[in-house]
């Protein structure tokens, strides 16, 4: 390394330091500060040490109970939507046309739900599902299914899940479609010559060739669903009771509803750490997949 030292470069980095300091570092430090204290209003703060964090992880306290309940709810929600969206997305991608004008039509139709803002999606489904004026709710109730997402926990969950599936399956399908398109024709021809059945083509060629895009799809959908806020908040408001209160909804309730800044700060830090860990896993897995691909190219 015989690079010349150039201290002037610091001036070029300085604006970024300032922007990041005010937009990220200072707010984060404030949150860390709050998480160690308690307040009863009047801008008076009392030292609480790691008290909130202890409470957060102890299910017998109010804060811990609410946090852990919403965490499990959130994980359950993510698991359910992944179990539906990933296979469904693969099926959609497999049944899409491979050439012709219909490709463009399918892509546009699939992309539409992805372009709709979250709270509009929430509002659409909130009205769609209403038993009095919503098409879905009205029809269901008239054919004898007692459906009401405001009072029935199961209905509320079903609505939130179906809404997420409607909103995001397209993303999985588009990613899988891109993966499928990148498989050279020779693979299908070779499979034909090898006498492979449709199922064997899927398991031996299509699924393995899609595994990288599927990995991206799973991680993106996990992160997104783990942070979900707007859509269930608009539709169910976290209810009935607390049945659809996910972590982010709980956090907003504590921070802005009860104005418990200390508890909320501690909760958001733990929430943040969970997300950073998931990001790290995401990043590690992705870079490893990239390295593997480079290796393959290297020998080719």
């Amino acid at each position, binding site marked *: 390394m015989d690079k010349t030292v150039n201290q002037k470069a610091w001036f070029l980095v300085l604006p970024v330091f300032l922007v990041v300091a005010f937009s990220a570092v200072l707010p984060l430090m404030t949150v860390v500060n709050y998480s160690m204290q308690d307040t009863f209003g009047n801008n008076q703060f009392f030292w609480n040490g790691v008290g909130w964090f202890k409470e957060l992880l102890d299910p017998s306290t109010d804060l811990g109970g609410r946090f852990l309940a919403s965490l499990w709810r959130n994980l359950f929600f993510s698991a359910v939507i992944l179990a539906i969206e990933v296979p469904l997305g693969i099926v959609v991608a497999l049944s899409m046309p491979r050439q012709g004008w219909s490709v463009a039509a399918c892509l546009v139709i699939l992309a539409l739900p992805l372009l709709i803002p979250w709270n509009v999606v929430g509002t659409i489904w909130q009205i769609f599902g209403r038993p009095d004026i919503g098409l879905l709710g009205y029809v269901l109730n008239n054919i004898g299914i007692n459906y009401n997402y405001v009072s029935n926990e199961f209905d509320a969950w079903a609505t939130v899940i179906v809404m997420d599936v409607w909103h995001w399956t397209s993303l999985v399908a588009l990613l899988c479609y891109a993966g499928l398109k990148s498989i*050279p024709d*020779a*693979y299908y021809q*070779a499979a034909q*010559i*090898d006498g492979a059945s449709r199922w064997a083509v899927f398991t*031996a*060629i299509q699924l*393995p060739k899609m595994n990288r895009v599927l990995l991206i799809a799973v991680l993106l959908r996990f992160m997104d669903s783990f942070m979900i806020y707007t859509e269930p908040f608009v539709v169910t408001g976290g209810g009935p009771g607390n049945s659809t209160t996910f972590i982010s909804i709980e956090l907003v309730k504590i921070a802005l509803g009860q104005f418990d800044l200390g508890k909320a700060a501690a909760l958001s830090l733990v929430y943040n750490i969970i997300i950073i860990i998931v990001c790290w896993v995401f990043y590690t897995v992705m870079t490893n997949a990239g390295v593997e691909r480079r290796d393959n190219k290297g020998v*080719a």
Partner: protein
Amino acid sequence: MARIDLVDLAHSYGGNDAPPESFALKPVTMTWRQGGAYALLGPSGCGKTTLLNLISGIVTPSRGKILFDGTDITPLSTQKRNIAQVFQFPVIYDTMTVGQNLAFPLKNRGVPKAEIDARVAEIADLLDLTPYLSRKAQRLTADAKQKISLGRGLVRSDVAAVLFDEPLTVIDPELKWQLRSKLKALHRALDLTMIYVTHDQTEALTFADTVVVMHDGRVVQSGTPAELFDKPAHTFVGYFIGSPGMNIVPAEVRGREARIDGHTIMLNRNYDGLPPGAKIEIGVRPEFVNVAPPGSGLLAANIERIDDLGRIRFARVRVGDVKFAARVPARFSVPDNAAGLVFDPAHVHVYADSLLVEGN
């Protein structure tokens, strides 16, 4: 294992109604015998891959029939045709081990396990893949992957033919030699009909007993490497095969004489019945023309440069407007660039409209 007959087979990607000149494969009728090693040789876009894909069933012909042992298989799908094909780029099943890859075509056809194991072991042994059998195929080098593709093509003993579509494109030059001789050995060991598509004349000439030269959608000649070299049936074969290619020169031919640039060359045969109005050319391989010091009775030429190919030297000369390649004998030297050309009459061929004319 089968004899393959192509009957008036033709294909156009634009459908059967497309104009005849636009056909990717113009009508061809030929027979390939059981157990033969054939090469389809021609430049890119000459229709050789189309012909191969017609035989394997990936493409359905616009016209004509394909018979395996006399049975018309034209309407059958690839799966039902009993054909194996190896593609230009290695196709391997990533999630499987090398052994599972090799066993895949047999497993799909419900072959008993003991038989599969025996055959896979045999093929792996022939291709030196035995140490890798239980390894994941994904991590191997490109040439090992291509060996697996070859192995999958060869693993079925009952196939009518094994088709190779430029299978050595991705292989390093020194490994190419090894794999090519391996294929030749496999052909002898397994008694399979093999059809090998390539644009590389060395590959075609070393691999095949019969080379089918294609040009612009047509089969222009089918013969042994020696036939292609000694007696090209078409001027294209003349300059495509051989390095440098055959000299093709416009000439006036009358009886046993050919006139180039006012100079007369004697011919071995009598060419009296040449079609009137046809474009007449003579063709002679550079190996059968020697440069000599200029002299009377020799075709005068101007040497532009001399290529030293190691064991043999070729002069690039110019006769009038026509470029010529000719052999340079040992210890040849001339003070300036002027030289004369000495022809070997036994190897001077006459072409009318690019097609060989047999004299008498």
